[in-house]
């Protein structure tokens, strides 16, 4: 009994340690978001509202980039929204593992993102899954919002953020998020086609629209792959 309780405590501590590691490391990069958003011309309040209310990094960076490029607000929001769609699939997996009462789910939903899903899905047992999700979510939410505020204040103090190379923070963030997803030829084909569409359509379509058009690379490559496999089966 005592030994089991001791093991449980040790397992709990390991989950908390992993969760805090992810929460702190990623939470600090809210600084990059704060600087980028404020440097793109958003006010302090708008920058902080994005981190508090949207709280999914890639969508936030995408929205800020699209607005800075002069995109229509709804087109900009559409790009950010499509990037956030993956969170629905994390939620689907998490809802089975977390087994939350229905009344709690609306409160847990805001924390359903890449990092909480990664930590929670790596745990075994209901207790550890819940601890992993809650500790990652809380530490990340608090730090991400705090560092967003500091970054936005810092950008206002710095003035010309481009002179400091801070306009490269956005693409570097996207690249860092993208890199681990490029697991197979399919992913690379989608990425390559999306780059061609995104750059090729940039001069001819209104700001923000080329990114949405580039999203079509996903169904196009899937369709081509399905056709190729279908052809192979016929032979």
């Amino acid at each position, binding site marked *: 009994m005592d030994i089991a309780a001791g093991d449980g405590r040790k397992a709990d501590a390991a989950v908390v340690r992993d969760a805090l590691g992810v929460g702190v490391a990623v939470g600090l990069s809210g600084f990059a978001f704060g600087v980028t958003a404020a440097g793109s011309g958003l006010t302090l309040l708008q920058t902080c509202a994005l981190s508090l209310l949207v709280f*999914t990094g890639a969508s936030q960076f995408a929205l800020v980039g699209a*607005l800075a490029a002069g995109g229509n607000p709804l087109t900009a929001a559409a790009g950010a929204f499509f990037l956030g769609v993956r969170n629905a699939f994390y939620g689907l997996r998490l809802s089975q593992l977390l087994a939350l009462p229905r009344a709690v789910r609306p409160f847990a939903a805001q924390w359903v993102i890449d990092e909480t899903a990664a930590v929670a899905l790596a745990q075994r047992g209901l207790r550890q899954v819940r601890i992993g999700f809650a500790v990652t979510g809380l530490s990340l939410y608090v730090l991400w919002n705090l560092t967003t505020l500091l970054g936005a204040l810092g950008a206002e103090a710095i003035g010309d953020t481009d002179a400091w190379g801070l306009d*490269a923070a*956005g693409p570097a963030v*996207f*690249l*860092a998020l993208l890199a681990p997803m490029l697991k197979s030829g399919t992913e690379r084909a989608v990425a390559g086609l999306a780059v061609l569409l995104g750059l090729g359509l940039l001069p001819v379509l209104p700001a923000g629209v080329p990114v949405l058009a*580039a999203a079509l690379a*996903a169904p196009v490559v899937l369709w081509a792959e399905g056709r190729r496999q279908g052809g192979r089966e016929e032979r």
Partner: protein
Amino acid sequence: MSVWIAIGVTAVGCYAVKLVGLLVPAGALERPLVKRLAALLPVALLAALTAQQTFADGRELVLDARLAGVAAAAVALLLRAPFLLVVAVAVVVTAGVRAMGG
């Protein structure tokens, strides 16, 4: 004002998709094709965004210091540098190249 509209729509939309995942019955979105598409959609968007924010100046494509910064970030990623370091490398290299008149 239009910035606030964009923030509001994004906030509501992103919260809604998070909640949908937690609320819909398991299996509703588990069709293989839907899952594949959902996994590939961020790949396409992130690749396009990386390219655009590296090369775009308004609606023109340009080569400037950002390319050096993003290339340095790619090297850092290949060396398995942590997230924050990757971003820092991009910023420092871009600022350095720009300071040298690039």
